[in-house]
């Protein structure tokens, strides 16, 4: 049994310790907001936070994450508990198209805003270049991040 702490909740999973965290989150814990895109750390669809830092869960063995703080898109915020400013900005800027990449985009952007409260275009490019969007929502992702950065400055984050 591997003890996991996901979005503040304790889980114990009976899996091979080398199983990638992605499949444990999706198939054993049942949180499907984190997506599979490539399996080789090339697309970022599987991005979650490990102790606040963005990681590629498709190449992270579950044992590495044992007893650490894991946050997935479901833990970032939702309509009931309050949206994270990025989620609200994503709605305001109408960012998603198919939506499949967006959990990874938002988790990466959230980590960026934790360390940089007014990211420039270059900062955004650096932080977000690992997350592929096949629908080409990049111009709106940029706007969404900037909008959320302003919102975060005017009122403290909620739900995150």
């Amino acid at each position, binding site marked *: 049994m591997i003890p996991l702490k996901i979005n503040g909740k304790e889980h114990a999973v009976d899996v091979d310790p080398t199983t990638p965290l992605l*499949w444990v989150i999706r198939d054993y814990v049942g949180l499907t907001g984190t997506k599979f*895109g*490539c399996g080789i750390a090339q697309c970022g669809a599987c991005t979650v936070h490990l102790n606040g830092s963005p990681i590629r869960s498709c190449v992270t063995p579950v044992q590495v994450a044992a007893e650490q703080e894991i946050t997935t898109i479901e833990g970032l915020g939702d309509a009931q508990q309050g949206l994270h400013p990025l989620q609200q900005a994503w709605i305001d800027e109408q960012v998603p198209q*198919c*939506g499949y990449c967006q959990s990874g985009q938002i988790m990466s952007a959230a980590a960026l805003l934790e360390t940089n409260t007014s990211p420039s275009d270059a900062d955004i490019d650096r932080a977000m270049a690992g*997350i*592929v969007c096949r*629908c080409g929502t*990049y111009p709106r992702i940029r706007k969404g991040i900037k909008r959320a950065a302003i919102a975060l400055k005017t009122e403290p984050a909620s739900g995150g």
Partner: protein
Amino acid sequence: MGKWSRRAFITTGIAAGGVVVFGVAIRRGDRSGIVGDLIADPGDAIFDIWLKISPDNTVTAIVPHAEMGQGVHTTLAMMLADELDADWARLEVVEAPSDKEFANYALARGYAAGDVDFPAWLIDTVDGFFFRATQAMGLQITGGSTSVRTTGQFAMRVTGAAARSALLHAAADEWQVPVEELGARDSVISHAASQRTATYASFAAAAARLRLPAKPRLKSAEQFRIMGTSPQRGDIPAKVDGSAMFGIDTRLPGMKYAAVKASPVFGGTVRSYDAASVQDLPGVRKVIDLDAAVAVVADGYWQAKRALDQLPIEFDDAGNAGWEQGDIFKQFAQDLDASASAGDEETDLETGDATAVLAAAEHVLEAEYRVPFLAHATMEPMNCTAWVHDDECELWLGTQNPLGFAKDAAEAIDFDADKVTVHNQYLGGGFGRRAFSDVAVQAARVAAEVPYPVKLVWSREEDTRHDHYRQASISRFRGGLDAAGNTLAWHNHYVNKYDPEEAPHIPYAIDNQRIVYTVSKTHVPWGFWRSVDHSLHAFFTESFIDELAVAAGRDPYEYRRELLMNQPRFLAVLDLAATKAGWGEALPENIGRGISIHRSFGTIVAEVVDVEVVDGEVSVQRVVCAVDAGFAMHPDGMAAQMESGIAYGMTAALYGEISIRRGAVAQSNFHDYPMLRIDKAPVVETHIINSGESLGGAGEPGTPPIAPALTNAIYDATGIRIRELPIRLHDLGKPNRRETDVA
């Protein structure tokens, strides 16, 4: 609307609970060719849309379209609400079930009459429906850009207007006033003179007993209240918090997982494998032979995948293992040569006498272009969850063609088609790929062998190597100019034709045109890829017209303008893009600017690209896009589709290459089939023209012009003419300003 009304029926009924239903269906015409395989049998009536008005005055529309991210539900709802003068805040659009029975005329009538319970909301399709609808109306288009122009224009608006008219007539009868004196707004009818108001719901039952007008009068653009505005899309909130359910997110009690590996060489089959060698690995349940592929079923996906990776499999290569990409292009070239000398090309278009004019022309410019195969690379890899139980098969996945998938899966496991149900989910990208049922067939076959539900997921490698590819092609041109630089003749001979027919046509006033092609088959499977044939022909034709402009010593924009003098719509779009981009201004060093224009799916798009080339590195700075789709129902959605289509086409132009090595696809994942990323994504400015012409699509027309606009810009920056995609194959480090191959 003539064609429409002859093949449509509009009906009404009162269902349980006082719900009143208005229905419109289209009967499909003949089917033909490629599209025929994707649709239902001839003579099937096609379920189209239903509109229900509930006693609490809410309006629900049921549409046969999947949401792939193009915001189709929101746009369709707008069209309905506007014609109906419904309360936008209390109007909902849901997806219709893909149950084949539901597509049946008799059942539809039964439903409308209240005999049948409202089934769970699932769906029909974008492509599947679209093919039927457009064929029913005698149009000749394929692709996914048409939900708004077919369902929206011919069903949502008609239904809304018909229902509104019936409601008003019912109110006029009851209040004993002339119908012309009544007003309608926000689902409420009012009579100003007597100061009476009442909800739609209160007249719905009476309206349902009236004969609906077969050709209700639709609003003119000045009367629109909702169409042409940009309300927020209804699908977006679920896509920011992880709650949107894609096919791959399906979870069922007792579900197991399958990983699959198909013969890397197309056409190959499984010769042998050693199931015993993985049987004892943790979680492994079963190894299943699927003829062309092997599936491993296990308790977890990772267990299935690991076992599959360790499983020794031998494939027969069907004699196709000798193919190399170079051989394919060589074959194309030889077949072009052979049919040109034999004179047995197939003709697309022949006007004037291009051959004779070219023989006599002062200058003849020749060029050959080529493009590679392309994979779709939808962000969500192919997957399908299947469960065979109680003589039924249920499938969960995102599909552009649920009825076709159900039919194919049924055939594969020898079930009646009505015993297979497709539960459509959000699509993590479609782009044409999710019109092909291969993964659904695999999943159904696996599920038929086990007593539990199975989620079958392709690895990215499997997805890249077993696509239905945008075809590779070669296109040859000869252009004839007189001494003054006027273009006299256009001769184009290319290899392989798919769809749509008009993709290689040009809008330019060139009197002598000969556009022909030669078929040259390979073992690589083709499929619809965003904008289909337009994706290659726009690159070919808009590059060559640029070459002609250079050969004529003209500015590429001015040159196009002159040849478009009799095409006011094209001209307006071209001018808007050029003006907004500041065409003609002096550009900084290393910056080049290119332009292109192309019509696809009824929409004209011009794009101007600014590109910087430094030390051979290409950086796209800005794309200015002008679009005329007749009328932009949802301008922000139109802009989003242009941004998306441009990114998709730019990815292919810069990097996209699927090549064949030893009969199989050489690429496997995003490291060798790279994607556009945010650090290379340009600013995109979209400018919309509402010309009032018939509605065009939005999802695809942004894609075709980007590759030629970009390579024309690279020519402007470097003097290097790119005639083969992708751009990354070229060394742009050595500026070279020659290149006027005028003979």
